[in-house]
């Protein structure tokens, strides 16, 4: 039979019909011509004659086209189904999207599983990225933020990088620098707005006079601080942030000129800072700013050369770069530091101080203060970003498997399109559009999940002591990130199925039964590779989960050197009492006596710094007769003053000697209790009892202190920190007492139940003392919040990864079993045992699992090293954690593949063979 199609198609070509329409007409006309030809041959014409006659009936070249032209015009536009290239690769993309939506609706189960995994995966990525954006990337809302640099000290041996300076150092820099167009200093503080009773704490700052000016922040109302507001013995003024103004005063203009009570002192409000500006410390927006000079009002000496509390920033001159500024600041370091050496320190310490140099760091995105949100969470966030990235990869792998399975089912459709003239590139575009539409839809769900999730995370890391506020808006970078993820995911899980699906020959796949053939085999090989990758990634996540969970468990069970249960902490500040310092000691004594007498109180005591208070610290230079420190090191210890009942209230065991008693008074021999670490470091096996040490600092005085006891080491700032050498001195022998202190009560009941009684007792002595309550248990929990967060989140994502991998493995094994049903049937017909069939299938799963685990082990050994610093009491390569992770993974994987394997075992040979 002659092939009429080319003749027909040539005649139809000028019409530029839709491929489907063109094919339909060609088919119909071909049949007509076939019939005609057959008839002519039957009537006795030669094949050649019949061919000529039949072709003649097509009537020249253009009749068909002419007759059809007007009629078929409606088919001219681009078809929804991809056909021939329409010139521009991107033309008709909308139709592709419409078609993709239709295809996705047709397979609701696959689509919803994919959507759910994507929503979780993309949502988690967007959530973590929006936190990274808020904590690390976002520019300060000030003029030319890129010109800002933070001025800190160069880190030196035995010291961490220091970002704070003393007020005398700041004044030196302010008055003598010639590097910057402007410099400013500030110090984040907690301000108490209450008028006695329970504290009403807000975040505030001490700010230098040029703070707002150098930043280029404008007033929203009134005026901002000026240099003239920040001079010694100033009366003090207050500037409010826009948010604080709205929250506390509903944005009333009348607030300008009125007074605000900060730490018991009234300051006139002079203005409101511009909207959106919340200071330079990420995560702790200020509400009230008062000038640095006003710190003197609260008893801080502005000439104290040992109080490191101010942060500094400078604005580079236009055209200047940070390297030039750094070089100049290095030159200025020696004269500036030399002018403000702490005179009370030892010669060794003074020399150490003189050799400080300034170090500049870019600060366009805000400052990086020690213990600030950025400092604490930058690295955990990066780890989490990595974790959620892996989870998303696993989710993508799952979806790729699902789509691969579906592409097998779609081979006929694809083959039809190819035969209708669609190019492969065009079809790949169509299939990729489907994936990207899928991932886009997942992202839309994910963004809701992200908004909720990131807000939840911020709440999780906020404690009573340090509130974290982050503006988690969907800004440009976050949006770009999410869109990038959508495209990446769509391509990632779409590319393999797209290439695989379009690699069919037009004719073979059209026939029934072909899809189960060779193509299916390589399909499942590919799917097995994908699952092996999932297994590897899951193992990495599970090992991480194991490390973080065990770190947290270690922290919760570590002996901190005190008993954290049933201790109520009462942060007390009598600043508003307006009492002179000598009157404080008897006042504290009365308060303590009153507390001890309360029913339900086992014991009570008072101290300057309670354990796990990450706020203040008191370090003293120590000198011990007979102890020679390594050269260049100024030996320092952590100090604390306490009342006699402190160690029994904390249940810190006494190792030897005695603890303080009432007889250790202001007039008796100065005494000290040290911890084991101090004893071991400075006395090296000698008995320290009765020996003397000298602590620097004006609070303690010049006399050497007699060691009367050694107590067990106790955690200081947080549970994961190593023990620190600590010296305790009795309150009675302290020369300079601050107006803030802490009482701690060991209770016989739930600590919280005692709060009303404590409040009444304190008010009966001094109404204006402000109080803040917490428990030692709460402090302990807050101090490991980072580790808790990592344990919870890595646990969640590890579990999610495990679930996704199990689904992936189940899917692949089920596919393998379906494909091999015939083979299994034959084996069983030939007498194979059910158990050997089970082994046959399980062996497939075991191979995938083994490959994945081997790769995962290599990966986790390499990757877990990055988290070493977040671990406590465990090493990154902890073998029991590895073993546990592998066991969990293998167990879940075996269950996931046992279900399809059992189905294979129950294959009825008769049914399986008949099926074929």
């Amino acid at each position: 039979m002659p092939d009429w199609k080319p003749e027909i198609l040539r005649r139809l070509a000028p019409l530029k019909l839709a491929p489907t329409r063109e094919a339909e007409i060609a088919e119909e006309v071909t049949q007509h011509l076939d019939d005609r030809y057959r008839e002519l041959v039957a009537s006795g014409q030669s094949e050649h004659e019949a061919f000529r006659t039949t072709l003649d009936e097509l009537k020249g070249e253009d009749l068909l086209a002419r007759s059809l032209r007007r009629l078929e015009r409606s088919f001219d536009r681009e078809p929804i189904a991809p056909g021939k290239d329409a010139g521009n690769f991107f033309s008709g993309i909308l139709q592709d999207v419409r078609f993709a939506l239709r295809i996705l609706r047709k397979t609701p189960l696959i689509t919803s599983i994919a959507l759910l995994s994507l929503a979780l995966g993309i949502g988690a990525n967007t959530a973590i990225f929006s936190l990274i954006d808020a904590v690390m990337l976002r520019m300060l809302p000030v003029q030319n933020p890129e010109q800002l640099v933070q001025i800190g000290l160069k880190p030196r041996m035995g010291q961490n990088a220091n970002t704070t300076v003393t007020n005398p150092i700041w004044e030196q820099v302010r008055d003598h620098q010639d590097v910057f167009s402007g410099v400013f200093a500030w110090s984040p503080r907690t301000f108490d707005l209450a008028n006695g009773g329970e504290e009403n704490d807000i975040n505030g700052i001490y700010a230098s006079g040029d703070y707002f000016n150098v930043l280029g922040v404008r007033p929203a109302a009134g005026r901002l601080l000026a240099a003239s507001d920040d001079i010694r013995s100033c009366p003090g003024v207050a500037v409010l942030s826009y948010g604080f103004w709205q929250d506390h005063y509903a944005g009333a203009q009348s607030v300008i000129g009125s007074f605000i009570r900060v730490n018991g002192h009234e300051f006139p409000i002079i203005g409101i800072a511009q909207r959106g500006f919340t200071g330079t410390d990420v995560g702790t927006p200020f509400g009230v700013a008062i000038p640095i000079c006003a710190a003197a009002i609260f008893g801080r000496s502005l000439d104290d050369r040992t109080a490191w509390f101010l942060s500094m920033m400078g604005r580079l001159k236009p055209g200047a770069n940070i390297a030039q500024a750094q070089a100049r600041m290095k030159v200025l370091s020696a004269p500036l530091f030399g002018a403000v050496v702490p005179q009370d320190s030892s010669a060794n310490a003074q020399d150490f101080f003189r050799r400080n140099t300034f170090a500049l760091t870019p600060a366009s995105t805000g400052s990086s203060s020690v213990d600030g949100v950025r400092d604490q969470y930058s690295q955990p966030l990066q780890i989490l970003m990595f974790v959620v990235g892996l989870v998303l990869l696993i989710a993508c792998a799952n979806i790729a498997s699902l789509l691969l399975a579906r592409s097998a089912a779609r081979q006929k459709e694809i083959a039809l399109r190819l035969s209708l003239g669609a190019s492969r590139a065009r079809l790949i575009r169509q299939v990729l559009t489907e994936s990207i539409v899928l991932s886009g839809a997942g992202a839309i769900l994910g963004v809701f999940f992200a908004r909720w999730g990131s807000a939840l995370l911020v709440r999780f890391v906020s404690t009573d002591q340090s509130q974290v506020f982050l503006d988690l808006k969907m800004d440009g970078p976050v949006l770009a990130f999410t869109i990038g993820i959508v495209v990446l995911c769509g391509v990632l899980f779409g590319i393999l199925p797209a290439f695989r699906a379009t690699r069919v020959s037009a004719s073979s796949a059209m026939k029934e039964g072909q899809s189960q053939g060779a193509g299916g085999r390589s399909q499942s090989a590919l799917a097995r590779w994908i699952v092996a990758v999932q297994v590897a990634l899951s193992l990495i996540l599970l090992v991480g989960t194991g490390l973080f969970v065990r770190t947290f468990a270690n922290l919760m069970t570590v002996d901190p050197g005190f008993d954290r249960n049933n201790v109520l902490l009462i942060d007390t500040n009598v600043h508003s009492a307006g009492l002179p310092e000598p009157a404080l000691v008897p006042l504290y004594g009365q308060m303590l006596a009153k507390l001890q007498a309360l029913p339900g109180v086992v014991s009570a005591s008072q101290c300057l710094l309670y354990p796990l208070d990450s706020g203040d610290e008191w370090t003293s230079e120590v000198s011990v007769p007979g102890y020679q420190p390594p050269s260049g090191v100024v030996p320092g210890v952590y100090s604390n003053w306490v009342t006699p009942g402190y160690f029994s209230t904390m249940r810190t065991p006494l190792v030897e000697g005695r603890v303080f008693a009432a007889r250790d008074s202001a007039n008796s021999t100065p005494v000290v209790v040290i911890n084991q670490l101090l004893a071991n470091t400075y006395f090296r096996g000698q008995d320290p009892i009765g020996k003397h040490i000298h602590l620097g600092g004006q609070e303690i005085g010049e006399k050497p202190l007699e060691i009367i006891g050694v107590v067990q080491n106790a955690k200081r700032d947080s549970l994961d920190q190593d023990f620190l050498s600590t010296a305790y001195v009795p309150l009675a022998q302290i020369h300079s007492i601050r107006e803030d202190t802490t009482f701690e009560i060991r209770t016989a009941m739930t600590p919280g139940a005692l709060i009303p009684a404590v409040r009444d007792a304190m008010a009966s002595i001094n109404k204006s003392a402000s109080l803040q309550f917490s428990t030692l248990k709460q402090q302990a929990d807050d101090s490991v919040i980072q580790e808790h967060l990592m344990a919870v989140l890595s646990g969640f994502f590890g579990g999610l990864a495990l679930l996704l991998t199990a689904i992936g493995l189940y899917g692949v094994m089920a596919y393998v079993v379906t494909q091999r049903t015939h083979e299994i049937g034959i084996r069983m017909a030939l007498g194979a045992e059910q158990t050997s069939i089970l082994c046959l299938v399980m062996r497939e799963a075991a191979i995938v699992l083994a490959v994945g685990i081997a790769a995962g082990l290599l990966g986790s050994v390499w990757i877990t090293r990055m988290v070493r610093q977040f671990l406590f009491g465990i090493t990154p390569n902890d073998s029991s954690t590895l073993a546990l992770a592998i066991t969990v993974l293998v167990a879940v994987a075996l269950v996931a593949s046992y279900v399809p394997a059992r189905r294979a075992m129950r294959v009825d040979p008769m049914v399986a063979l008949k099926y074929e």
Partner: protein
Amino acid sequence: MDNTTHEFEWKRGSAELLILSLIEARPRHGYEISKLIEQRSEGTVRFYVASLYPLLYRLETRGWIQGRWVEKSGQRRRRYYRLTRQGRKVLASQRRGWHVFVEAINRITEVENA
């Protein structure tokens, strides 16, 4: 050539009517339609491929007939055309018009011949 012109004139007025009439009783495919026209007119009226199918498609676009692919076992699928409800009305009206026309022609030609 003469013959062709004659054929063309004829079809122009009657083609639609012929097709609609042929599928009135049952659906037929294109080749069958062209065959029937040729047979019943004893070769006087013939439709060629290049004009038959455009005509079928036009009738289909107008909604008078409807084509449908039908597969029969052992055969290639074929497109069968059947009359729609609207097509049935059109056929009835065209038939009436045709009878009126033919009678009128007859009357005229008979008078001439008489």
